């Protein structure tokens, strides 16, 4: 059964990152992702991977604000990698810049699509089959 992201009868959800109960969990996941990136940071793979992490976080959190933990995960991974000696074949400016942009855009695109659909007047309207003849949802 499809899980609606919102409906016209429910109050709009607050952005996920503003809810304290989830901030810690998201922070831990960002940290784990960062470490995973650091482990894999032996070539350009991890910088491309950061886009997948960003997209994944976005699709999971369903808000464009996923860009924040995505960027944090990238920074943690990148700094750990540099700190442990990964410097060969790395472009000092482009790798962090484009990697950071991919992380942010991944989060924005992956989560932003749900923000857009939440605002779309038709996409989140209650399904006709679930509304009775006087408009009550069931």
């Amino acid at each position, binding site marked *: 059964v*499809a*899980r*609606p*992201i*919102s*409906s016209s009868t429910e109050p709009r959800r607050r952005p996920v990152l503003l809810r304290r109960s989830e901030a810690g969990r998201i922070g831990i996941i960002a940290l784990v992702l960062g470490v995973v990136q650091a482990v894999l940071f032996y*070539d*350009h*793979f991890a*910088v*491309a*991977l950061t*886009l*997948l992490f960003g997209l994944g976080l976005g699709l999971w959190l369903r808000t464009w604000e996923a860009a924040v933990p995505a960027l944090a995960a990238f920074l943690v991974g990148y700094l750990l990698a540099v700190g442990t000696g990964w410097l060969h074949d790395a472009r000092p400016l*482009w790798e962090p810049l*484009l990697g950071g*942009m*991919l992380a942010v*855009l*991944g989060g*924005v*695109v992956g989560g*932003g*699509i*749900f923000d*857009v*659909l*939440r*605002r*779309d*007047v*038709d*996409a*989140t*309207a*209650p*399904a*006709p089959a679930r509304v009775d003849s006087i408009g009550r949802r069931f």
Partner: protein
Amino acid sequence: VDSVFVAPAGWSWDIILYFFLGGIAGGALFLANLLRLSGAQPTLVPARIGYYIAFPLVNLCGLLLIKDLGRPERFWHMLLQSERFPLPMLKWWAPMSVGSWVLTFFGLAAFISFVYALLEGRVIRWDRLDPLQRWLAPLHRPGVLGAIYLVGGAGLGLLMAGYTGILLNNTSAPTWSQDPLLAPMFMASGVASAGAAMFLLGHFAGADAPSARHAVLRVALVALIVEAVLLVGAVAMGLTHISTSTYFLGLWGAFFWLIVLPLGIAAPILLLWTAEHRDRLLVRNAPVVGAALLLIGAFLFRTLEVLGGQAYFQLY
């Protein structure tokens, strides 16, 4: 075969992701435009979902391509002549140059439809933009102007999804150059993965008109079957040059036969066919599982083609 000494292109995960996301973007615009051409009211939301994903994804594609360049700040050299700025740089005989222009025009079409979808879906509610919506509306509904624009955009979508196959096929790599079906396979895979992505987004967003959503999924299934048929042809052709065919090349061959084929192509066809046409769910939420497997399979297929296609060099 013994005389092959062509160095591999050195393409890695940036290009794999570009092929994958570019395929979805191209397929999404293609499907969304076809839905618009049908003119049916229930297809409006699935079509808008297609527009919502095509433009953001093509931006990611551009960034991945720029990152893959040795000198990212020179990305504009792909489109404009640096010596005779601002004359365009177009080498019609070079797939990479043509592809740069396909990406540009596709991005433009995707942007126009993205803006229109935001206005039509009232995601952007600004009265001053009403004239823009009225101006763009004829382009997105059946009619002479709409048909020209939508068919043109759909064509660009297919090119966007498939030109990468032409690009690979025109290289000197023995794996890719002997596989003329790469482009149509990428097109079919792009349409299939876009349909799966649109279905999953509509499903998880709780968008209404599930019948239209499932219609999109059925189109994705047809595209996946077309891809599978083409793949049979490609594998058959690969039998004539097994030592340089991606489908038989060492561990990559095993990856194809043991993972990509059963999990990424056969399983989604079986799950979606039985769910959509036989009304029988082989697993719980079979359409969702099938669509997700289809997407994963499309990613694995690009991984196989890009990394496996360069693995021939390790054998010499």
